[in-house]
C-alpha cells in the first residue's frame, strides 16, 4: 500500500469516527463512543503497518517535536491564566462558588502538565547523554 492510499483511508476512518462519536453523544451511549475510538485506532494501526512508503522521517519528527512544544506552552499558559481568572471570579460572589472549584481543577491540571513535561525532559536529557564526565 502506498502513502496516498493510507492517507485516504485515514481521512475516511476519521470521518466515520466523527459520525459514530456524534451518534454516541446524541444517544447518550458511552460504550459506542469507546468501542468506535478503539476500533478506529486498531484500523489505523493495521493500515499503517501495511504501508511500504516512508510515513515518518526526521523532518516529520522535528515538526512533531515543535508542534508538541507549542501545544504544551499554549495549553499551560491557558490553563494557568484560566484557573487564576476562574478562582478570582469565583471569590467575587458566593453564587459563583463552582467557578472557584473549576479554577482549582484547572490549576492542578496546569501543575500536572508542567510536572509531566519536566519529568519527560529529565528522562530524555539523561537518555541523550547529559551529565557525562569531562574526559581530559
Amino acid at each position: 500500500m502506498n502513502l496516498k492510499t493510507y492517507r485516504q483511508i485515514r481521512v475516511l476512518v476519521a470521518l466515520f469516527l466523527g459520525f459514530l462519536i456524534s451518534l454516541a453523544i446524541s444517544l447518550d451511549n458511552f460504550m459506542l463512543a469507546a468501542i468506535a475510538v478503539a476500533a478506529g485506532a486498531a484500523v489505523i494501526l493495521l493500515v499503517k503497518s501495511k504501508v511500504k512508503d516512508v510515513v515518518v522521517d526526521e523532518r516529520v519528527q522535528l515538526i512533531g517535536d515543535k508542534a508538541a512544544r507549542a501545544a504544551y506552552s499554549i495549553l499551560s499558559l491557558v490553563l494557568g491564566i484560566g484557573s487564576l481568572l476562574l478562582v478570582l471570579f469565583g471569590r467575587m460572589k458566593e453564587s459563583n462558588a463552582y467557578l472557584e472549584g473549576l479554577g482549582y481543577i484547572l490549576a492542578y491540571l496546569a501543575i500536572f502538565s508542567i510536572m509531566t513535561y519536566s519529568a519527560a525532559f529529565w528522562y530524555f536529557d539523561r537518555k541523550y547523554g547529559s551529565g557525562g564526565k569531562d574526559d581530559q
Partner: protein
Amino acid sequence: MTNKLKVLRAEHDLTQEDLAQRLGVTRQTVNAIEQGKYLPSLGLALKMGKLFGKLVEEIFGEDA
C-alpha cells in the same frame, strides 16, 4: 545554507520521489531540503554524499 541537491538530482536523472525512496525519507523532505527550508541531519547528509559520490561539503555550503 545553500545546497546543490537539485542539480545533483537532475544530473542523476532522479525525481524527488526516486531520491526520497533511496534516502528513506518522504518526498516532502527532499523538496524542503532543495528549497533550503530544512537542514538534514548529519546521517542523512552523509547518505546523500554516498549516493551521489560527493563529500557533504560539496553538496552543502554556507551562503556567500
